[in-house]
């Protein structure tokens, strides 16, 4: 049986457990996408218009540097989400994101999502709660890495 896009949204860990009508609201802004391995999904400096809910495959968050290979700072995979810069002005991506393998994802139109959140603050609050929880996890993980715990000064 084919699932609706709202059902697929509800199955994604970012939105699991939310009332069906909330998932349908997100689903109304969403579509299924397939991205080829190696393709640049998001590009630093470009307008941030999409939240990606990954269902299959991994992507790499990259920082490019002139004349040298890019550095991978995070790998994100199935069940996770990528792309936050659409939430706040100036709505431009801060990093490159590249598909490491064929990707199956739900692409959520950010402007549509913001419009619905503005119109329905209760929905907007639920949305922010879910997004902020993930952002907090990423922030804490980033802080831990900032400590460079495997480095010479703090290693055992």
């Amino acid at each position, binding site marked *: 049986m084919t699932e609706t896009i709202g059902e697929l949204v509800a199955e994604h860990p970012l939105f699991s457990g939310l009332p069906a009508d909330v998932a349908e609201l997100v689903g109304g802004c969403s579509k299924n996408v397939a991205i080829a391995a190696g393709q640049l999904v998001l590009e630093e400096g470009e307008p941030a218009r999409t939240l990606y809910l990954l269902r299959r495959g991994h992507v*790499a968050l990259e920082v490019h540097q002139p004349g040298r290979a890019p*550095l991978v*700072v995070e790998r994100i995979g199935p069940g996770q989400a990528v792309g936050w810069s659409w939430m706040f002005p100036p709505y431009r991506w801060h990093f490159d994101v590249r598909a490491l393998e064929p990707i199956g994802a739900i692409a959520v139109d950010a402007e549509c999502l913001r419009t619905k959140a503005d119109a329905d603050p209760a929905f907007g609050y639920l949305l922010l709660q879910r997004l902020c929880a993930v952002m907090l996890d990423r922030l804490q*993980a980033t802080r831990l890495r900032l400590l*460079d715990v*495997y480095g*010479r000064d703090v*290693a*055992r």
Partner: protein
Amino acid sequence: MGAMSLAELEPVAHPLVPATYRVVARRVETDDITTLSIEPTSGSDPPFRPGQFNMLTAFGVGEVAISISSAPDTPGPMEHTIRDVGAVTHALCRVQVGSILGVRGPFGTDWGVDELDDADVVVVAGGIGLAPLRGAISYLVDKPGRRGRVYVLAGARSPDQVTFAEDLERWRRDGADVELTVDVAPPEWRGPVGVVTGLLPAASFDPPRTVALVCGPEIMMRFTIRSLVDLGVRPGSIRVSLERNMQCGVGWCGHCQLGPLLLCRDGPVIAYSEPLARLMSVREL
């Protein structure tokens, strides 16, 4: 019973007197980590258990506590994996094959892997913290008839700082779930990038029947313990390896005291508990 002459008496090893060992092999793991294989100049290795440590002496420089990184049942010489962080470890990392070292030990508690036949075991290691766990993992992976699964989650700074890459591959081949994450990577790296705690949610162990063995920088261990408990692992089922200023190795000198514990004797491997949580949170000792 007749009297024995002095010449007939077996020498008794004193715990503060090092035995002499010869370096029989030397393997450079990374730019600052070296593994030394050593054999006693006379007699055989004393028995040891995974997780225990020896005091290694670089003669003329000093002595330092180093975990044994080989498995007890593995044929071949005993191994120690050393990170060059100070004068003694610098000297040890530079010794050549054929050199003589002093060795006292083995000392301290072990991972207790022989009690874990039925449990799922999740091993979380950061950086050189994989060294004291290497013997335990090999034991768990190689033991015939073990029923629990083994998960090895390792973190390193970057791919070129990964230690024991061949062991990680072998453990994976022999049935363990092995994941390796790095803090930052070149584009050709296809594995996880991020902190080692980020590997925990995707590992499919059953938290209530899981025993966790954790070793690495203390900050990493604190965050790992928090994540394990949040996932439902019982605090008493988490074992950590702690290190302080080990000197005598036998609980006499008190240099390695952590609250009521003398880590050279009561550690380095300790079950996590509320009192230990408080001690690990002490800001100044």
